[in-house]
């Protein structure tokens, strides 16, 4: 690709070309270093056994999301800088009102069964996700799409119910992986047909998934290794020992204490990147005592974030405000950081709120995610100095999502990275599907709508900046820290990185010769 063709792309009106540029740089870099790249070999990955489906519409667990990432492609995807880049799309543009988007698609893409990838497949896949009868967890993030239309074989148009600058971000979601429109939907766990760098050769639930190199992959020359095998292993100790002894090449996911345990182990490195994933304690703002803003602020001020990050993630967390936009995000507002730990100040706020003798609250938690229970315990300890007695209810994992989450007034959960609009829309808008705090602030609702309709980055940044200030002041949810994404791997592995969007990308993975 020449520089002039990049220039050509810049000319299209109101196009988000940033991603195209990143991709172009990648292509240039790949062209220059092709000669030295080692190819071939098998990469063995140890992961958790919670695999349940490879139907993209129902991806929710880590191993499923990661295997699907290698087998399928989205039309757009997240860069390491948390911007959106084209994947099966080449470029896109929106109308001036931001209510209609046109995506141009790559013409050189084939599915694993040899069929051509066309606009029809995008219409099928996204149309399926926004079908209420399918009940995909992606519905809540895509339901602003009213129609998906194939204009020709390589052009797709999306119609939106209201102006929204964040359609590309929304389409980069885990569940947005493009299926072949003629696929047998009942057999996706064993016979996936994607466009991705690897083809699914074998899938045995609870045992392993075998992926073979796709020789006709559209991103030429990639992937570099012949085979990737994911092993489902229940015990984290077993996974780590297997990595140390060379039986495995990569172990994901790992938590903070596991990363600390791997320090200084010869032949093993841990790649780490701060991310937008976070743990949160949400308070229902319409249930006493959390309906009193002073109580919420007292809890906020009594939160020792350093101590909680230490307890729950071995001190690897990064700190932002009490809102879901992380310091790594281009839209982050540093003025909206959370107040420092001040138990005396919290005591005063509590007295002002009418609780001079302290207060007792019950925090629900569960080991559904590594570190959640540790966060709750550290929170209990940090708030005790302010006269706040946190009783911890440790609930069973089996029913946490259906019986506790969104039901109990004070609960702890985790969230993976999303773009600012996505994160705010699904958890803070008054009509959000996962409004954990029952937050109902017409001003924030309006600002979110304004941000979606704003035409330039600077306008959007100003609006999101204001939302961040409001949320940190209003504290519907306490977000003590943002989690890093960690990948443990052997020194033999190159080209694999921790991705801030919790994507695990193997198409550039290779094994060096030593």
């Amino acid at each position, binding site marked *: 690709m020449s520089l002039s063709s990049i220039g050509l792309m810049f000319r299209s009106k109101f196009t988000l070309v940033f991603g195209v540029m990143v991709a172009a740089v990648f292509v240039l870099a790949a062209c220059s270093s092709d000669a030295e790249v080692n190819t071939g070999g098998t990469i063995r990955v140890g992961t958790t056994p919670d695999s349940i489906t490879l139907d993209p519409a*129902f991806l929710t667990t880590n191993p499923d999301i990661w295997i699907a990432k290698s087998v399928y492609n989205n039309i757009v995807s997240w860069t390491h800088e948390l911007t959106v880049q084209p994947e099966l799309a080449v470029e896109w543009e929106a109308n001036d009102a931001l209510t209609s988007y046109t995506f141009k698609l790559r013409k050189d893409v084939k599915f694993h069964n040899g069929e051509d990838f066309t606009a029809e497949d995008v219409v099928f896949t996204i149309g399926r996700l926004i079908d*209420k009868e399918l009940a995909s967890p992606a519905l809540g993030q895509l339901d602003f799409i009213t129609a998906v239309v194939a204009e020709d074989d390589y052009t797709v148009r999306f119609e939106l119910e209201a102006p929204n600058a964040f359609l590309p971000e929304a389409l980069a979601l885990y569940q947005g992986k493009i299926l072949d429109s003629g696929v047998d939907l009942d057999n996706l766990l064993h016979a996936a047909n994607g466009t991705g760098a690897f083809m699914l050769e074998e899938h045995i639930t609870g045992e392993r998934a075998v992926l073979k190199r796709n020789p006709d992959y559209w991103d030429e020359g990639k992937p570099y290794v012949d085979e990737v095998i994911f092993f489902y292993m229940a015990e984290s100790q*077993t996974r780590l*020992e*297997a990595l140390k*002894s060379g039986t495995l090449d990569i172990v994901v996911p790992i938590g903070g204490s596991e990363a600390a345990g791997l320090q200084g182990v010869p032949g093993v490195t841990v790649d780490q990147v701060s991310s937008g994933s976070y743990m949160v304690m949400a308070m229902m703002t319409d249930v006493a005592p959390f309906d009193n803003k002073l109580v919420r602020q007292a809890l906020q001020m009594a939160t020792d974030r350093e101590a909680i990050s230490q307890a729950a993630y071995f001190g690897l967390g990064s700190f932002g405000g009490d809102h879901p936009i992380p310091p790594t995000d281009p839209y982050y507002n540093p003025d909206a950081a959370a107040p420092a730990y001040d138990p005396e100040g919290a005591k005063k706020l509590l007295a002002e709120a009418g609780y001079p003798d302290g207060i007792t609250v019950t925090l629900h938690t569960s080991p559904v995610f590594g570190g959640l229970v540790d966060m709750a315990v550290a929170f209990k300890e940090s708030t005790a100095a302010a006269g706040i007695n946190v009783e911890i209810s440790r609930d069973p994992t089996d029913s946490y999502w259906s019986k506790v989450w969104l039901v109990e007034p004070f609960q702890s959960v985790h969230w993976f990275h999303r773009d600012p609009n996505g994160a705010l829309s699904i958890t803070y808008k008054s009509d959000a599907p996962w409004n954990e705090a029952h937050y109902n602030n017409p001003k924030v609702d309006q600002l979110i709508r304004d941000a979606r309709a704003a035409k330039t980055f600077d306008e959007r940044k100003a609006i999101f900046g204001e939302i961040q200030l409001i949320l940190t002041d209003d504290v519907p949810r306490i977000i003590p820290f943002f989690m890093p994404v960690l990948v443990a791997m052997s020194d033999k592995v190159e080209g694999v990185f921790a991705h801030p969007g919790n994507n695990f990308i193997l198409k550039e993975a290779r094994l060096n010769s030593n």
Partner: protein
Amino acid sequence: MAQFLARRISLIALTLLVVSLAVFAITEILPGDVATAILGRGATPENLEILRQELGLNAPVYSRYLDWVWGILHWDWGESMVQKRPIWDLVLPRLSNSAVLAGFAFLVAVPTAIATGIWAGIRPGGLPDHAVSNASLVAISLPEFVTGVLLIVLFSSTLHWLPSSSILLPGESPLSKPSILILPTLTLTGVLFAYIMRMTRANVMGVMETSYVRTAILKGLPMRKVILRHVVPNAMLPTISVVAMNIGYMLGGLIIVDSVFAYPGLGRLLLTSITQRDIPLLQALALLISGVYAFSNLLADVAYALLNPRVRLG
């Protein structure tokens, strides 16, 4: 004998029926079902309703149970709700892996445990007896997940002699890669050895004190002959029951050993079927395991009768 067998087998059938009812009832009481497992956090009430309808979970309990029983009676074990594969295709490879592991553990544990038990039992109170008895107490008290991790740390992480996990590449089986069997076998053997050894020792001690053994010794029979002819056959009878009971225990131990070593056996499949609430798969595994348990006990009873003419079957 035939009448005895017929009665016992029909009792086993009844047991299996009760087991299947119990498993069904328990999974009904447990919070969550296969729909919440599939949807995870996406389990909004509307989504759950749609998926339950699709999976047929909305039918009343009794009708789902009767459908399942009807299928079993026609040797139709059904499909896994999550993996959408025939149950037997999932169970058979795991069953053979587990049988290999359990077989190895028995081959190692039973002869050594019996030999050690006899050896310790004929000289109770000596130093070797104390050593073996105390060691076996430790082995009984340590759960497999502790023994397993200790063995990994020692033989794999420190000495680098053996692989730390029992993962298999495509085309491999445990028998084609026996090194992966050693640590799981040792882990399973620990408790098994200790139980059988202690039982044998106690029985041998008991028999040694009987008057017929004293008579045999006093009439000048060589000690060797006393032990082989009189002590061992009599002391073996209760040991047979212990071995048979331990087949049931082994199947439980397999769940933990499969997890610690990532061994592709029945235990992991069972655990997966429970966490995913995959009822047809769980039912099939529960029936299979209780069936093995019941039949091994039946075998023990028959063996008991054949060895001991005082017991009459009928």
